[in-house]
């Protein structure tokens, strides 16, 4: 009888540990998904400034600089992003299109000093800079959560539980130096 109780207690303890680890992995995965959705939400904030950019392009006829094409490409890249699937390649593409557009704009406005000095253009650039800062920060949060998740499925005994029950794969962090540069705030730099 004592042996049976001992075995039952050990089995119950084991079951509790396995359930805790299983739930921990799910919680960390949910945190990764939430952080990813956050990145996409921040990326989609760019949709708010695209109409203003189009208006500027038309007003100052920036067609020859290819700005309109870059706007269309960015819109398309943003449209293809999904908050449900972690797609770092799609995110890299949207970030690349954003970089192209910002560089294109900077080149184009060199021929239009009046535009470069205007409040509307400067407000727009400030808004883009603020958005890029938030995207950079959202990516940092995503990467932190991915690291937590990966640690959560690779360390022992979590790796055993994941192998047998969760069966989740390691997630790649997002590395894009330009996107990360968009987020320059650091207290440690002081």
């Amino acid at each position, binding site marked *: 009888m004592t042996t049976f109780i001992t075995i039952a207690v050990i089995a119950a303890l084991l079951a509790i540990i396995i359930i805790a680890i299983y739930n921990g992995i799910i919680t960390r995965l949910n945190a990764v998904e939430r952080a990813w959705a956050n990145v996409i939400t*921040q990326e989609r904030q760019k949709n708010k400034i695209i109409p203003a950019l189009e208006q500027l392009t038309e007003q100052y006829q920036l067609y020859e600089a290819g700005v309109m094409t870059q706007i269309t490409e960015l819109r398309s890249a943003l449209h293809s992003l999904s908050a449900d699937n972690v797609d770092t390649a799609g995110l890299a593409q949207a970030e690349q299109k954003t970089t192209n557009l910002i560089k294109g704009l900077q080149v184009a406005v060199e021929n239009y000093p009046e535009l470069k000095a205007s409040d509307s253009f400067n407000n727009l650039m400030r808004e883009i800079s603020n958005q890029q*800062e*938030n995207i950079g*920060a959202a990516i940092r*949060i995503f990467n*932190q959560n991915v690291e937590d998740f990966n640690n959560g499925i690779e360390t022992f005994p979590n790796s055993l539980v994941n192998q047998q029950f969760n069966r989740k794969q390691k997630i790649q962090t997002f590395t894009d130096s330009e996107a990360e540069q968009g987020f320059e705030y650091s*207290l*440690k730099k002081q």
Partner: protein
Amino acid sequence: MAGVATHNNKLKQLLAELTRRSRTATTVQDLLEITELAARFNAPLVYRNQLQYVLAAVFVLAGALLLFFQHQYYLYIRPSGWTGFTLLMTAAAGLLLFALSRNRSISRLSNDIFTKNVLFDNQLKPLAEKDVANQLLAAFLEFKRGNYSRKIEQLYQGHSASDNSSFSYYFYHFHYVDKRRETYTESDGKGGTRIRTRTVYDHYHRYGICVPEFKNPAVMVYSHAPEHKLPAAYRPASNRFNNHYRVQSTDEMQAARLMKPAVVIAFEDLYPILQRPNVELQPDAGLCLSFNDNNLLLAKRQYSLQQPQLFRQEIAAHTPLDKLHQALHFIHHLANHAAISLQDARL
């Protein structure tokens, strides 16, 4: 011996003058003049304590001789002998303490001058007005701590500017006391124990920066739980942030609007710099960043009035308060993002 007394008297007069000037100093220039005055003193700024040391040695020797001769004469030491010995030892210790403490007063004066210099260098002004302290105590939930007493012990006013924002702020030292009853066991003198109760006062100190002109709906981000909270909880997406902080607001949307990713990361970066940081935003009172660190206004002094030339150079140089600037940098960052969030909310 007359020369020693003259030196000590002159030094005493000089230190009294330096102390008076230090108390009334309002600029770095005033402090520099104090160091120049010290430099003009044609001798080291140290009390000459030879007399005190000799007298102390005589008293110790006299005490020892008293015991020795009593023992020789009576073959034991009488109570009067012990009394005399104690008096002589107390006199010797008093003389030594006096000698050491009056030289330490020079170091204390150097500290006072340096502390004032640090405040001037960082545009901080002590505030004695109780009205401001009382307004702060009433405005923020952060100060609703301590069931026995709560008081703002020190208050300074400052101004900070960055590329995008500038604001006036108050730096405070908050002291609160919790009163509680506790039980303890003690010996009853008969080999057993008895249970007694006593009143215990727990003293706590928090420090912080309040910015009255920071306007935002009520949000609290805290790592040191306040005793009073706002009703709605909010959790950002960051695991690291959620490990350190909790967010409360009047409604979840207000918190979500403020806690953009860049703000969340700023809070994460603040955590290893300040101990148990809290941020409270109140629509009418502004912002209050509070923490446990007591060293934001402290800088390390290298020299003293005893090296007047070097001390003068130290006073003339700007002494930055790095931790204070990091805290202010955080507030500027928060102010910029809160302003953008408020604009977005109005659109």
